[in-house]
Protein backbone atom coordinates (compact mmCIF):
# COMPACT_ATOMS: atom_id res chain seq x y z
CA UNK A 1 0.00 0.00 0.00
CA UNK A 2 1.12 3.55 -0.71
CA UNK A 3 2.89 5.27 2.23
CA UNK A 4 3.64 1.87 3.70
CA UNK A 5 5.54 -0.17 1.11
CA UNK A 6 8.02 2.59 0.16
CA UNK A 7 8.94 3.03 3.79
CA UNK A 8 9.59 -0.70 4.19
CA UNK A 9 11.81 -0.90 1.12
CA UNK A 10 14.89 -2.98 2.07
CA UNK A 11 17.01 -1.30 -0.63
CA UNK A 12 16.36 2.14 0.85
CA UNK A 13 17.00 0.73 4.33
CA UNK A 14 20.37 -0.62 3.19
CA UNK A 15 21.33 2.74 1.68
CA UNK A 16 20.50 4.51 4.92
CA UNK A 17 22.49 1.98 6.89
CA UNK A 18 25.50 2.39 4.57
CA UNK A 19 25.22 6.17 4.91
CA UNK A 20 25.05 5.82 8.70
CA UNK A 21 28.28 3.80 8.65
CA UNK A 22 29.95 6.49 6.53
CA UNK A 23 28.75 9.23 8.90
CA UNK A 24 29.57 7.87 12.36
CA UNK A 25 33.00 8.43 13.88
CA UNK A 26 32.15 7.48 17.45
CA UNK A 27 29.30 5.60 19.19
CA UNK A 28 26.19 7.56 20.12
CA UNK A 29 23.28 6.82 22.50
CA UNK A 30 19.88 7.76 21.06
CA UNK A 31 16.51 7.29 22.72
CA UNK A 32 13.37 6.49 20.79
CA UNK A 33 10.63 7.74 23.08
CA UNK A 34 7.68 5.87 21.59
CA UNK A 35 7.03 2.23 22.42
CA UNK A 36 5.50 1.64 18.99
CA UNK A 37 8.84 2.64 17.48
CA UNK A 38 10.65 0.30 19.91
CA UNK A 39 8.62 -2.61 18.54
CA UNK A 40 9.29 -1.66 14.88
CA UNK A 41 13.03 -1.33 15.60
CA UNK A 42 13.21 -4.76 17.22
CA UNK A 43 10.86 -6.50 14.79
CA UNK A 44 13.10 -5.40 11.93
CA UNK A 45 16.38 -5.96 13.76
CA UNK A 46 17.36 -2.31 13.39
CA UNK A 47 18.61 -2.14 16.99
CA UNK A 48 21.20 -4.80 16.11
CA UNK A 49 22.02 -3.49 12.63
CA UNK A 50 23.07 -0.08 13.94
CA UNK A 51 25.30 -1.46 16.68
CA UNK A 52 27.91 -0.55 17.72
CA UNK A 53 27.60 2.80 15.93
CA UNK A 54 24.38 3.71 17.68
CA UNK A 55 23.01 2.37 20.93
CA UNK A 56 19.24 2.66 20.91
CA UNK A 57 17.77 3.29 24.35
CA UNK A 58 14.06 2.70 24.79
CA UNK A 59 11.97 5.44 26.36
CA UNK A 60 8.82 5.79 28.45
CA UNK A 61 6.42 6.12 25.50
CA UNK A 62 4.13 3.29 26.50
CA UNK A 63 0.99 4.88 27.94
CA UNK A 64 -0.31 1.59 29.29
CA UNK A 65 2.99 1.08 31.13
CA UNK A 66 3.05 4.47 32.82
CA UNK A 67 -0.61 4.55 33.89
CA UNK A 68 -0.43 4.85 37.68
CA UNK A 69 -1.22 1.72 39.65
CA UNK A 70 -3.76 3.59 41.77
CA UNK A 71 -5.76 4.46 38.67
CA UNK A 72 -5.64 0.87 37.43
CA UNK A 73 -6.93 -0.30 40.81
CA UNK A 74 -9.70 2.32 40.54
CA UNK A 75 -10.54 1.03 37.05
CA UNK A 76 -10.78 -2.50 38.42
CA UNK A 77 -13.08 -1.37 41.25
CA UNK A 78 -15.34 0.58 38.85
CA UNK A 79 -15.44 -2.24 36.30
CA UNK A 80 -16.58 -4.66 39.01
CA UNK A 81 -19.59 -2.53 39.95
CA UNK A 82 -23.01 -3.80 38.87
CA UNK A 83 -24.63 -1.73 36.13
CA UNK A 84 -21.30 -0.56 34.72
CA UNK A 85 -20.05 -1.25 31.20
CA UNK A 86 -16.31 -0.66 31.34
CA UNK A 87 -14.75 0.02 27.93
CA UNK A 88 -11.07 0.11 27.10
CA UNK A 89 -8.46 -0.39 24.41
CA UNK A 90 -7.47 -4.07 24.40
CA UNK A 91 -3.95 -3.33 25.61
CA UNK A 92 -5.18 -2.43 29.07
CA UNK A 93 -6.96 -5.70 29.89
CA UNK A 94 -3.98 -7.71 31.05
CA UNK A 95 -2.09 -4.92 32.79
CA UNK A 96 -1.57 -6.04 36.37
CA UNK A 97 -3.15 -3.97 39.13
CA UNK A 98 -2.26 -4.54 42.77
CA UNK A 99 -3.96 -7.92 42.86
CA UNK A 100 -6.05 -8.24 39.71
CA UNK A 101 -6.50 -7.26 36.07
CA UNK A 102 -9.49 -6.29 33.91
CA UNK A 103 -9.56 -9.70 32.24
CA UNK A 104 -10.13 -11.38 35.61
CA UNK A 105 -12.78 -8.83 36.54
CA UNK A 106 -14.54 -9.81 33.33
CA UNK A 107 -14.15 -13.52 34.10
CA UNK A 108 -15.95 -12.90 37.40
CA UNK A 109 -18.90 -11.32 35.57
CA UNK A 110 -17.84 -7.69 35.12
CA UNK A 111 -19.01 -6.19 31.80
CA UNK A 112 -15.62 -5.23 30.38
CA UNK A 113 -15.56 -4.53 26.64
CA UNK A 114 -12.71 -3.82 24.23
CA UNK A 115 -13.42 -0.98 21.86
CA UNK A 116 -11.42 0.24 18.86
CA UNK A 117 -12.34 3.88 19.45
CA UNK A 118 -13.68 5.97 22.34
CA UNK A 119 -16.40 7.04 19.89
CA UNK A 120 -17.62 3.42 19.96
CA UNK A 121 -17.96 3.71 23.76
CA UNK A 122 -20.26 6.73 23.30
CA UNK A 123 -22.38 4.63 20.94
CA UNK A 124 -22.60 1.89 23.57
CA UNK A 125 -23.75 4.50 26.11
CA UNK A 126 -26.45 5.72 23.72
CA UNK A 127 -27.66 2.15 23.19
CA UNK A 128 -27.67 1.33 26.93
CA UNK A 129 -29.39 4.24 28.68
CA UNK A 130 -29.87 2.22 31.86
CA UNK A 131 -26.17 1.42 32.26
CA UNK A 132 -23.17 3.52 33.22
CA UNK A 133 -20.56 3.39 30.46
CA UNK A 134 -16.97 4.28 31.36
CA UNK A 135 -14.08 4.60 28.90
CA UNK A 136 -10.53 4.21 30.21
CA UNK A 137 -8.87 7.23 28.53
CA UNK A 138 -5.24 6.13 28.46
CA UNK A 139 -2.75 7.55 25.99
CA UNK A 140 -0.47 10.35 24.90
CA UNK A 141 -1.29 13.48 22.88
CA UNK A 142 -2.06 11.21 19.90
CA UNK A 143 -5.04 9.63 21.62
CA UNK A 144 -6.40 12.60 23.59
CA UNK A 145 -8.24 14.23 20.63
CA UNK A 146 -10.30 11.05 20.14
CA UNK A 147 -11.30 10.92 23.82
CA UNK A 148 -11.99 14.68 23.79
CA UNK A 149 -14.24 14.22 20.78
CA UNK A 150 -16.02 11.35 22.56
CA UNK A 151 -16.88 13.50 25.56
CA UNK A 152 -17.95 16.40 23.33
CA UNK A 153 -20.17 13.97 21.42
CA UNK A 154 -21.63 12.58 24.66
CA UNK A 155 -22.41 16.08 25.90
CA UNK A 156 -24.04 17.06 22.62
CA UNK A 157 -26.20 13.93 22.70
CA UNK A 158 -27.16 14.73 26.29
CA UNK A 159 -25.81 11.41 27.57
CA UNK A 160 -25.55 11.40 31.34
CA UNK A 161 -24.45 7.75 31.52
CA UNK A 162 -21.03 8.22 29.86
CA UNK A 163 -17.80 9.10 31.62
CA UNK A 164 -14.04 8.98 31.13
CA UNK A 165 -11.44 7.62 33.51
CA UNK A 166 -8.65 9.91 32.34
CA UNK A 167 -4.97 9.04 32.41
CA UNK A 168 -3.63 11.08 29.51
CA UNK A 169 0.06 11.95 29.61
CA UNK A 170 2.28 14.37 27.70
CA UNK A 171 5.61 13.57 26.05
CA UNK A 172 7.75 16.73 26.46
CA UNK A 173 7.76 16.65 30.30
CA UNK A 174 8.91 13.00 30.16
CA UNK A 175 11.78 13.89 27.81
CA UNK A 176 12.74 16.73 30.13
CA UNK A 177 12.67 14.39 33.16
CA UNK A 178 15.03 11.99 31.39
CA UNK A 179 17.37 14.79 30.29
CA UNK A 180 17.52 16.39 33.71
CA UNK A 181 18.33 13.11 35.52
CA UNK A 182 21.98 13.14 36.59
CA UNK A 183 22.48 9.60 35.30
CA UNK A 184 21.20 10.43 31.82
CA UNK A 185 23.48 9.31 29.02
CA UNK A 186 21.09 10.05 26.18
CA UNK A 187 22.68 12.20 23.48
CA UNK A 188 19.76 12.54 21.07
CA UNK A 189 16.06 11.79 20.78
CA UNK A 190 13.70 10.45 18.17
CA UNK A 191 10.44 12.22 18.98
CA UNK A 192 7.21 10.32 18.35
CA UNK A 193 5.73 11.26 14.99
CA UNK A 194 2.06 10.81 15.82
CA UNK A 195 2.23 12.81 19.05
CA UNK A 196 3.73 15.64 16.95
CA UNK A 197 1.11 15.11 14.23
CA UNK A 198 -1.42 16.30 16.81
CA UNK A 199 0.47 18.94 18.84
CA UNK A 200 3.37 19.87 16.56
CA UNK A 201 6.97 20.24 17.73
CA UNK A 202 7.32 23.83 18.91
CA UNK A 203 7.70 22.72 22.54
CA UNK A 204 10.92 20.90 21.67
CA UNK A 205 12.90 24.02 20.77
CA UNK A 206 13.27 24.95 24.45
CA UNK A 207 14.57 21.43 25.18
CA UNK A 208 17.18 21.40 22.39
CA UNK A 209 18.39 24.83 23.55
CA UNK A 210 18.52 24.02 27.25
CA UNK A 211 19.99 20.51 27.09
CA UNK A 212 22.01 20.77 23.87
CA UNK A 213 20.59 17.57 22.38
CA UNK A 214 19.18 16.99 18.90
CA UNK A 215 15.51 16.00 18.68
CA UNK A 216 14.26 14.53 15.40
CA UNK A 217 10.53 14.02 14.88
CA UNK A 218 10.38 10.53 13.35
CA UNK A 219 7.84 8.25 11.68
CA UNK A 220 7.08 4.62 12.32
CA UNK A 221 8.19 2.51 9.37
CA UNK A 222 11.70 1.00 9.19
CA UNK A 223 12.93 3.54 6.60
CA UNK A 224 11.51 6.40 8.69
CA UNK A 225 13.35 5.15 11.76
CA UNK A 226 16.65 4.67 9.95
CA UNK A 227 16.39 8.14 8.45
CA UNK A 228 15.54 9.60 11.89
CA UNK A 229 18.59 7.89 13.37
CA UNK A 230 20.79 9.16 10.52
CA UNK A 231 19.50 12.74 10.92
CA UNK A 232 20.20 12.61 14.67
CA UNK A 233 23.69 11.21 14.13
CA UNK A 234 24.51 13.85 11.51
CA UNK A 235 23.64 16.54 14.05
CA UNK A 236 25.73 14.87 16.75
CA UNK A 237 28.73 14.47 14.43
CA UNK A 238 28.46 18.13 13.39
CA UNK A 239 27.96 19.39 16.95
CA UNK A 240 24.45 20.66 16.22
CA UNK A 241 21.42 20.38 18.51
CA UNK A 242 18.29 21.27 16.60
CA UNK A 243 14.71 20.18 16.16
CA UNK A 244 14.30 18.46 12.80
CA UNK A 245 11.28 16.81 11.22
CA UNK A 246 11.81 13.50 9.42
CA UNK A 247 8.06 12.78 9.31
CA UNK A 248 7.01 15.88 7.36
CA UNK A 249 4.43 13.97 5.32
CA UNK A 250 2.28 13.87 8.48
CA UNK A 251 3.74 16.43 10.90
CA UNK A 252 3.44 20.21 10.59
CA UNK A 253 5.30 22.53 12.96
CA UNK A 254 2.10 23.60 14.75
CA UNK A 255 0.42 20.20 14.56
CA UNK A 256 -3.26 19.74 13.73
CA UNK A 257 -5.10 22.93 14.72
CA UNK A 258 -8.53 21.26 14.91
CA UNK A 259 -7.23 18.49 17.17
CA UNK A 260 -5.41 21.01 19.38
CA UNK A 261 -8.56 23.10 19.69
CA UNK A 262 -10.43 19.97 20.86
CA UNK A 263 -7.80 19.36 23.55
CA UNK A 264 -8.11 22.98 24.72
CA UNK A 265 -11.89 22.72 24.76
CA UNK A 266 -12.02 19.63 26.99
CA UNK A 267 -8.80 19.23 28.95
CA UNK A 268 -6.45 21.18 31.19
CA UNK A 269 -2.84 20.40 32.04
CA UNK A 270 -2.18 18.82 35.46
CA UNK A 271 0.61 17.13 37.42
CA UNK A 272 0.47 13.36 37.04
CA UNK A 273 2.23 10.36 38.54
CA UNK A 274 3.88 8.00 36.02
CA UNK A 275 4.04 4.38 37.10
CA UNK A 276 7.62 3.45 37.92
CA UNK A 277 8.86 7.03 37.43
CA UNK A 278 7.01 9.28 39.88
CA UNK A 279 5.06 12.52 39.67
CA UNK A 280 6.03 14.77 36.75
CA UNK A 281 4.85 18.37 36.91
CA UNK A 282 2.42 19.46 34.20
CA UNK A 283 2.72 16.08 32.47
CA UNK A 284 -0.94 15.06 32.24
CA UNK A 285 -4.35 16.13 31.01
CA UNK A 286 -7.56 16.13 33.04
CA UNK A 287 -11.10 17.18 32.18
CA UNK A 288 -11.65 20.91 32.71
CA UNK A 289 -14.47 22.47 34.73
CA UNK A 290 -16.89 22.44 31.80
CA UNK A 291 -16.55 18.66 31.34
CA UNK A 292 -16.00 17.77 35.00
CA UNK A 293 -19.37 15.98 35.12
CA UNK A 294 -17.95 13.37 32.73
CA UNK A 295 -15.07 12.45 35.05
CA UNK A 296 -15.44 8.84 36.25
CA UNK A 297 -13.21 9.56 39.25
CA UNK A 298 -15.80 11.92 40.69
CA UNK A 299 -18.81 9.97 39.47
CA UNK A 300 -17.70 6.75 41.17
CA UNK A 301 -16.47 7.18 44.72
CA UNK A 302 -13.80 4.53 45.06
CA UNK A 303 -12.31 4.45 48.55
CA UNK A 304 -9.75 2.37 50.33
CA UNK A 305 -7.29 1.67 47.54
CA UNK A 306 -3.95 0.41 48.83
CA UNK A 307 -1.57 -0.13 45.96
CA UNK A 308 1.00 -2.92 46.05
CA UNK A 309 3.77 -3.06 43.44
CA UNK A 310 5.78 -6.27 43.13
CA UNK A 311 9.14 -5.14 44.55
CA UNK A 312 11.11 -7.29 42.10
CA UNK A 313 9.64 -5.55 39.02
CA UNK A 314 12.16 -3.08 37.58
CA UNK A 315 9.91 -1.59 34.93
CA UNK A 316 10.54 1.95 36.22
CA UNK A 317 14.22 1.62 35.30
CA UNK A 318 13.31 0.06 31.94
CA UNK A 319 10.91 2.93 31.18
CA UNK A 320 13.62 5.51 31.86
CA UNK A 321 16.19 3.69 29.74
CA UNK A 322 18.38 2.99 32.79
CA UNK A 323 18.41 -0.78 32.19
CA UNK A 324 17.47 -2.93 29.22
CA UNK A 325 14.66 -5.45 29.80
CA UNK A 326 16.93 -8.49 29.68
CA UNK A 327 19.09 -7.01 32.44
CA UNK A 328 16.21 -7.54 34.89
CA UNK A 329 16.72 -10.86 36.70
CA UNK A 330 13.01 -11.66 36.41
CA UNK A 331 12.90 -11.14 32.62
CA UNK A 332 11.67 -14.26 30.80
CA UNK A 333 11.93 -16.27 34.01
CA UNK A 334 9.36 -15.17 36.59
CA UNK A 335 8.04 -12.41 34.31
CA UNK A 336 6.57 -13.46 30.96
CA UNK A 337 3.67 -12.22 28.80
CA UNK A 338 1.53 -15.00 30.30
CA UNK A 339 2.42 -14.07 33.89
CA UNK A 340 3.60 -10.44 33.82
CA UNK A 341 5.02 -8.69 36.88
CA UNK A 342 4.73 -5.30 35.22
CA UNK A 343 2.88 -3.58 32.39
CA UNK A 344 5.85 -3.35 29.95
CA UNK A 345 5.71 -7.14 29.59
CA UNK A 346 2.09 -7.15 28.34
CA UNK A 347 1.65 -3.93 26.40
CA UNK A 348 2.09 -3.98 22.62
CA UNK A 349 4.31 -0.95 23.21
CA UNK A 350 6.21 -2.25 26.21
CA UNK A 351 9.96 -2.69 25.84
CA UNK A 352 9.93 -5.93 27.89
CA UNK A 353 7.28 -7.41 25.58
CA UNK A 354 9.35 -6.42 22.53
CA UNK A 355 12.53 -8.01 23.93
CA UNK A 356 10.61 -11.17 24.81
CA UNK A 357 8.76 -11.41 21.49
CA UNK A 358 11.75 -10.72 19.25
CA UNK A 359 14.18 -12.88 21.16
CA UNK A 360 16.49 -10.22 22.61
CA UNK A 361 17.63 -12.40 25.48
CA UNK A 362 20.92 -11.81 27.24
CA UNK A 363 23.64 -12.34 24.66
CA UNK A 364 26.79 -10.61 23.57
CA UNK A 365 26.39 -7.48 21.47
CA UNK A 366 27.33 -8.01 17.83
CA UNK A 367 30.72 -6.45 17.35
CA UNK A 368 31.76 -4.58 14.28
CA UNK A 369 34.61 -2.09 14.05
CA UNK A 370 33.63 1.52 13.68
CA UNK A 371 34.87 2.74 10.31
CA UNK A 372 37.65 5.24 10.67
Amino acid at each position, binding site marked *: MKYVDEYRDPVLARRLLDELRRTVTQPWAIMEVCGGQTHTLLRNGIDELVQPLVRLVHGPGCPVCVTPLELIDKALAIAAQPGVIFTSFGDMLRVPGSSDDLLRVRARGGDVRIVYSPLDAVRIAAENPGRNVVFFAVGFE*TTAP*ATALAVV*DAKRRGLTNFSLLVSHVLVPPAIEAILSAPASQIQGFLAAGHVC*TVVGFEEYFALTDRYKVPIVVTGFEPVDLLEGILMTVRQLEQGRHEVENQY*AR*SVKRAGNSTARALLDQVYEVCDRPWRGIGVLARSGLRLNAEYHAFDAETRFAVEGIHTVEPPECRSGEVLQGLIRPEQCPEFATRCTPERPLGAPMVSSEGACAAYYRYGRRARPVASEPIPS
Partner: protein
Amino acid sequence: MCLGVPGLVVERESAEADMPSAVIEFAGVRRVVCVACVPEAEVGDYVIVHAGLAISRLDAEEAERVLECLRAIGEDEGWTGETQPAANESSS
Protein backbone atom coordinates in the same frame (compact mmCIF):
# COMPACT_ATOMS: atom_id res chain seq x y z
CA MET B 1 -1.05 2.97 21.39
CA CYS B 2 0.22 5.82 19.25
CA LEU B 3 -0.13 3.41 16.37
CA GLY B 4 -1.47 5.37 13.41
CA VAL B 5 -2.49 3.53 10.29
CA PRO B 6 -2.38 5.13 6.84
CA GLY B 7 -5.54 4.61 4.79
CA LEU B 8 -7.10 5.83 1.56
CA VAL B 9 -10.25 7.97 1.62
CA VAL B 10 -12.67 6.15 -0.71
CA GLU B 11 -15.92 7.88 0.20
CA ARG B 12 -16.91 11.00 2.10
CA GLU B 13 -20.15 10.33 3.90
CA SER B 14 -22.88 12.95 3.84
CA ALA B 15 -21.56 15.86 5.85
CA GLU B 16 -23.42 15.20 9.07
CA ALA B 17 -22.44 18.53 10.57
CA ASP B 18 -21.57 17.25 14.07
CA MET B 19 -19.48 14.19 13.30
CA PRO B 20 -18.14 14.15 9.75
CA SER B 21 -17.05 10.71 8.66
CA ALA B 22 -15.48 8.94 5.71
CA VAL B 23 -14.97 5.40 4.47
CA ILE B 24 -11.26 4.61 4.65
CA GLU B 25 -9.57 1.63 3.04
CA PHE B 26 -6.66 0.04 4.90
CA ALA B 27 -4.90 -2.54 2.71
CA GLY B 28 -8.24 -3.96 1.56
CA VAL B 29 -10.25 -3.49 4.75
CA ARG B 30 -12.83 -0.68 4.77
CA ARG B 31 -13.94 1.17 7.85
CA VAL B 32 -15.95 4.27 8.69
CA VAL B 33 -13.70 6.79 10.41
CA CYS B 34 -14.34 10.20 11.95
CA VAL B 35 -12.70 12.96 9.91
CA ALA B 36 -13.62 15.91 12.16
CA CYS B 37 -9.92 16.80 12.55
CA VAL B 38 -9.09 16.60 8.81
CA PRO B 39 -12.07 18.36 7.23
CA GLU B 40 -9.97 19.04 4.11
CA ALA B 41 -9.51 15.32 3.29
CA GLU B 42 -11.06 14.30 -0.01
CA VAL B 43 -11.57 11.05 -1.89
CA GLY B 44 -8.16 9.91 -3.10
CA ASP B 45 -6.26 11.41 -0.16
CA TYR B 46 -4.38 9.31 2.36
CA VAL B 47 -4.94 9.95 6.06
CA ILE B 48 -3.39 8.65 9.28
CA VAL B 49 -6.03 7.07 11.52
CA HIS B 50 -5.66 6.54 15.25
CA ALA B 51 -8.40 5.18 17.55
CA GLY B 52 -11.14 5.77 15.00
CA LEU B 53 -10.13 9.37 14.31
CA ALA B 54 -8.15 10.64 11.31
CA ILE B 55 -5.39 12.87 12.73
CA SER B 56 -3.65 14.01 9.54
CA ARG B 57 -3.95 14.16 5.79
CA LEU B 58 -0.68 12.92 4.31
CA ASP B 59 1.23 15.48 2.28
CA ALA B 60 1.93 13.73 -1.04
CA GLU B 61 4.49 16.30 -2.21
CA GLU B 62 6.44 16.10 1.02
CA ALA B 63 6.41 12.29 0.92
CA GLU B 64 7.71 12.25 -2.64
CA ARG B 65 10.40 14.83 -1.89
CA VAL B 66 11.74 12.76 1.02
CA LEU B 67 11.71 9.54 -1.02
CA GLU B 68 13.65 11.28 -3.81
CA CYS B 69 16.26 12.41 -1.28
CA LEU B 70 16.52 8.92 0.14
CA ARG B 71 16.89 7.35 -3.31
CA ALA B 72 19.75 9.77 -4.01
CA ILE B 73 21.70 8.75 -0.90
CA GLY B 74 24.86 6.95 -1.83
CA GLU B 75 24.50 7.58 -5.57
CA ASP B 76 27.71 9.61 -5.60
CA GLU B 77 29.53 7.01 -3.51
CA GLY B 78 29.53 4.45 -6.29
CA TRP B 79 26.72 2.51 -4.65
CA THR B 80 25.58 -0.10 -7.17
CA GLY B 81 22.39 -1.32 -5.58
CA GLU B 82 23.76 -4.85 -5.49
CA THR B 83 24.28 -5.07 -1.76
CA GLN B 84 21.99 -7.66 -0.28
CA PRO B 85 19.56 -6.05 2.12
CA ALA B 86 20.42 -7.05 5.64
CA ALA B 87 17.20 -5.86 7.20
CA ASN B 88 14.50 -8.33 8.02
CA GLU B 89 12.18 -7.81 5.11
CA SER B 90 9.03 -9.15 6.66
CA SER B 91 6.37 -6.52 6.53
CA SER B 92 3.98 -7.07 9.31
